[in-house]
């Protein structure tokens, strides 16, 4: 065993030269948070493609499955991407845990402090803790779905999951938690590193604007999936097949013979 371990075990850690890890962990927490926030926005736009129509959402789903590049749809590509994001998520959650109140005593003091102080940024932080805690469970369940059944993404498949499988309350909660957490997180990231050096007032207005925009977009998107799912419930399990694609996209489709048999048709 190294001497430094023995020194730390002996309660003399303060006598050692300071580890560089707290700095690295801080950078990693900020970095993973930034990447997850960027992902979250991209994801929201992709999912919201349903607002442009079922064919738009189908095309985006197929694009991520490599249909337009590889000649066939490979839903496992989506699982692979989800696994990468899961890794970021787990790392971010692990690092964020360092900041959580770790005992009832700490929580009790902090709660009283925030309530009495009536300070907006402190209050926003406690909401970040609450929503982050909720995401431990909500996002984990969503990741499991995407890893295990990546073939069940599509205009009808997703709508069936939202409506007939009764998951819309789950998505509603996750939407609220993600948008609140991510919005506050990005604002805090900007003030924490003072980059870009914009004023706090501007950053806060931007933060609320973006949170509001993505919440409205998310609610409209969820509402659309619920509507499609409701109308499609009698044909639960049936997959969407576009009648036709825009000419430019059809040129990208394999063998140029679109519409053709959808490989997802075989999926249960």
């Amino acid at each position, binding site marked *: 065993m190294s001497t430094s371990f023995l020194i730390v075990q002996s309660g003399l850690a303060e006598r050692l030269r300071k580890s560089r890890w707290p*700095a690295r962990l801080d950078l990693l927490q900020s970095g993973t948070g930034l990447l997850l926030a960027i992902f979250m926005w991209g994801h929201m736009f992709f999912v919201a493609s349903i607002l442009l129509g079922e064919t738009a959402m189908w095309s985006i789903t197929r694009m991520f499955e490599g249909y337009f590049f590889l000649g066939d749809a490979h839903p496992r590509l989506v699982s692979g991407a989800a696994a990468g994001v899961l890794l970021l998520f787990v790392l971010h959650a692990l690092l964020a845990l360092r900041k959580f109140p770790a005992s009832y005593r700490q929580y009790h003091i902090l709660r009283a402090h925030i309530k009495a102080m009536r*300070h907006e940024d402190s209050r926003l932080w406690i909401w970040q803790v609450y929503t982050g805690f909720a995401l431990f469970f909500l996002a984990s369940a969503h990741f499991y779905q995407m890893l295990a059944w990546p073939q069940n993404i599509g205009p009808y498949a997703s709508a069936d999951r939202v409506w007939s499988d009764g998951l819309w309350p789950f998505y509603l909660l996750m939407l609220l938690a993600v948008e609140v957490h991510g919005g506050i997180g990005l604002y805090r990231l900007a*003030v924490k590193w003072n980059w870009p050096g914009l004023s706090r007032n501007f950053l806060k207005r931007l933060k609320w604007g973006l949170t509001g925009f993505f919440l409205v977009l998310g609610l409209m998107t969820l509402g659309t999936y619920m509507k499609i799912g409701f109308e499609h419930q009698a044909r639960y399990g049936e997959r969407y097949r576009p009648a036709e694609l825009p000419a430019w996209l059809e040129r990208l489709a394999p063998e140029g013979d679109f519409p053709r048999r959808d490989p997802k048709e075989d999926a249960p």
Partner: protein
Amino acid sequence: MSAETFHRHITLNILRYNPQDADAEPRLQSYALEEADGMTLFIALNELREHQDPTLQFDFVCRAGICGSCAMMVNGRPRLACRTLVAELPAESTLTPLPFFELIGDLSVNTGKWMRGMSERLETWLHARETEPDLQRIEERMAPEIAEAIYELDRCVECGCCVAACGTAQMRPDFAGAVGFGKIARFRADPRDTRDDDDYFELIGDDTGVFGCMSLLACHDVCPKSLPLKTQIAFLRRKMALIA
């Protein structure tokens, strides 16, 4: 406007507790008094002590926002009593001692004890790597902008408001606090101090230091001297992160 409206009757609910008395329980005691023109909270407290309750404990020295002694929680937020006009407060206000620091009694806390400990831990004094100080040497000239930057950071009066407002400090009693970071930033800006960022990392490069700061920024928002704490902490965080 009638004198009646102008001079309100105000109520101050003050947390009373004597930690030296084993039987004492913390309690709120209400005091009523008439507001006067230009009355600060410091004046109001003195009036209470002189005319209503000589046992009331609170601190003050300068009465002008320079000594930092009269910091207390006013309606849940840290403020200097001498810089708080009663006219700014509602008709009924609550005064409690600064949290985090050792309580002497009522509104009086021992900020000095903690400040000294923090100063010793963060070595907030000029470090010049000289083997033998030359007392005859003329002090080197300093560019005015550097002197001003140092002066700007040296305006801290160590009142403790930033630490009392800090959510991190409430959870972590070993947290250095914005006052500590301000002092490190002050010596880092001073060309006479020969320490480099590796040395400063040894002082604030962990979770009790700059990486423990959660950027809640209450320190920045309550600082009675309006010190640029947000930018200074972010600056130190960037510099310390570069060491990693």
